[in-house]
């Protein structure tokens, strides 16, 4: 039983990271119908930037302040990066055949990975423990303060994003552009500006997710973004792509499925398959969702895409 609760806790923490990344995918897909393959790499750049700041400035300020400073640096770098990527690689191809932007996105993902490998070297780097990591007992399972903090920060971010999209002027412009860029343009919305804003917000969320991922797992490397990116896309599809609450629900559910799956696959298959098969669950979920319910769990509410 305590394994069950432990895996639920792990799943929730993992799922909230997926949810944050999935929001970036879903917003971009909702507006320009592009799978931004490089989104997972933005997470990686965020984590590595934060690692650099932390290792360089360690000791000059209290740990909690350092964490915030490194997070801010990561967000700024990622936002600038994603803004530039959109401008030079995706914008010129907006009216090209559908495959072209997809290929550029894959090229961009490869490029970012390679550049990160050149800048930060290919080895794994330990991410120092900055936050108090006090373990608590919950029904026999363990949760530490970092994990609690991740859950709280994610919840606050998600609430803030919902407010931004549903209540502010920018949010309305985003929804209008997702609906129909041409008509939105006629109504005084600048689609290019809105798309840039979407990429910047998505990058900020990915940077936050990257820092939390690094803080939770304690190590960073240039390939760390790829699988979370792919899984976050799965989460976005799972919840219904283009749908913000869907991305959140999809992310959390996918995290739960993955950690419960990894925890129980050994028992279920009599030890034939072990927990190193963890990575296949996301894809099985993806295939099942796409064949059984292609519009995703929450459907694609056309009027509410952002």
């Amino acid at each position, binding site marked *: 039983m305590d394994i069950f609760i432990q895996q639920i806790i792990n799943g929730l923490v993992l799922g909230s990271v997926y949810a944050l990344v999935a929001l970036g995918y879903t917003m971009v897909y909702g507006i320009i119908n592009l799978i931004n393959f490089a989104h997972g790499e933005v997470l990686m750049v965020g984590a590595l930037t934060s690692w650099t700041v932390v290792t360089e400035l360690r000791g000059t300020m209290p740990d909690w302040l350092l964490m915030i400073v490194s997070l801010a640096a990561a967000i700024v770098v990622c936002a600038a990066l994603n803004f530039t990527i959109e401008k030079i*690689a995706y914008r010129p191809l907006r009216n090209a055949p559908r495959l072209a932007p997809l290929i550029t996105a894959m090229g961009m993902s490869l490029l970012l990975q390679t550049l990160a490998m050149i800048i930060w070297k290919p080895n794994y780097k330990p991410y120092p423990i900055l936050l108090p990591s006090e373990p608590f007992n919950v029904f026999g399972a363990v949760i530490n303060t970092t994990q609690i903090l991740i859950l709280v920060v994610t919840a606050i971010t998600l609430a803030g994003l919902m407010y931004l999209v549903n209540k502010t002027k920018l949010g309305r412009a985003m929804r209008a552009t997702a609906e129909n860029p*041409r008509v939105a343009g006629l109504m005084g919305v600048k689609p290019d500006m809105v798309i840039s804003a979407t990429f910047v917000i998505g990058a900020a969320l990915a940077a936050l997710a990257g820092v939390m991922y690094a803080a939770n797992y304690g190590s960073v490397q240039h390939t760390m973004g790829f699988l979370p990116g792919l899984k976050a896309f799965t989460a976005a599809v799972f919840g219904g792509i283009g749908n913000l609450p869907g991305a959140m629900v999809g992310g959390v559910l996918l995290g739960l499925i993955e950690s419960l799956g990894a925890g129980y696959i050994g028992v279920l298959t009599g030890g034939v398959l072990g927990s190193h098969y963890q990575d296949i669950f996301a894809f099985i979920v993806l295939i099942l969702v796409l064949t059984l319910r292609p519009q995703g769990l929450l459907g694609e509410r056309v009027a509410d895409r952002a």
Partner: protein
Amino acid sequence: MKNKLVVFALCGLALFITPLIAQYFGNAWVRIIDSALLYVLLALGLNIVVGYAGLLDLGYIAFYAVGAYMFGLLSSPHLTETFPAIGAMFPNGLHTPIILAIPLAAGLAGAVGVLLGAPTLKLRGDYLAIVTLGFGEIIRVFINNLDAPVNITNGPKGLSQIDPMHLGKLTMGKAIDVFGFTIPPVTLYYYLFLLLVLGSVVLCYRLERSRIGRAWMAIREDEIAAKAMGINTRNMKLLAFGMGATFGGVSGTMFAAFQNFVSPESFALNESVMVVAMVVLGGLGHIPGVILGALLLASLPEVLRYVAGDLQSMTEGRLDAAILRQLLIALAMIAIMLARPRGLWPSPEHGKAAPGAQAPTPVPPGIPADVTRSAP
């Protein structure tokens, strides 16, 4: 007519003597050409799926892996050493003749291809891309972990001591002497791969002009219209997946025999992306374009290894050959797509619209490309 024959004869002669010249400068050069030819073979196979049928398959390298591993299992000592029962049945080792091993490997890859295609028939475009990518990863995870509790693939260690291509007593593993001229194995493999590539080109060319090929292109251009015209889109898509996968499987057997060794490392996602890049960069659905793309992406970075040494010392070892290669491929993917979204050498009549609909209607920036239609 006469001119054409002369050109063909000259091309044939050039292809024939290329390795003999390259061999003079060292076997490494022939190896580069060999692996480029393997990539051409892979790209031609993927072109059937992506170029003709318009199904973006990002898990293509998985079939390559299936073919390579099947061949590896059938022609390496792994099975006889791990399972005493099989060892007792084949005391001399499991040296399956290639007449049996290649069709088995190709058949298995084709079957896996159909299996993969079946649940994804309803999907198109991006969704299909991401699902096939997932399938590729699933197969890789299995290959990487199927060493326990029953050791089938030998896990990350891979299979070694795979037999070279052999037909009865004739083997490509050793150099042979022809009129006092020594032909090393790499050159022998060159001729084998060249034959396969030429055969594939003829096959693809015939396919393109057959009813099947036209059905695929109809599906690529407009699936609903194709269905309305009486094309069985389900069977045609499965056929495309199966046929592409068979190509991948055959390439895999060649790779396994050529390297004498397979491990999960060779079948990472980057390789899949690279083959897709070759097909798309060259020109989707256009055989000469695809070959050009494959040759360029496969050989250019290899040649650049010779300047990599200086760069490496200039950058304190950060920029080694492998990294430079990746960097170039990534930059090529982005730059060529930006400059020529239809590829370097697109097919001339490809994607012609009905008369009068040639000029696209002007759209303000920010409009996504047509959503329902898959990529031309």
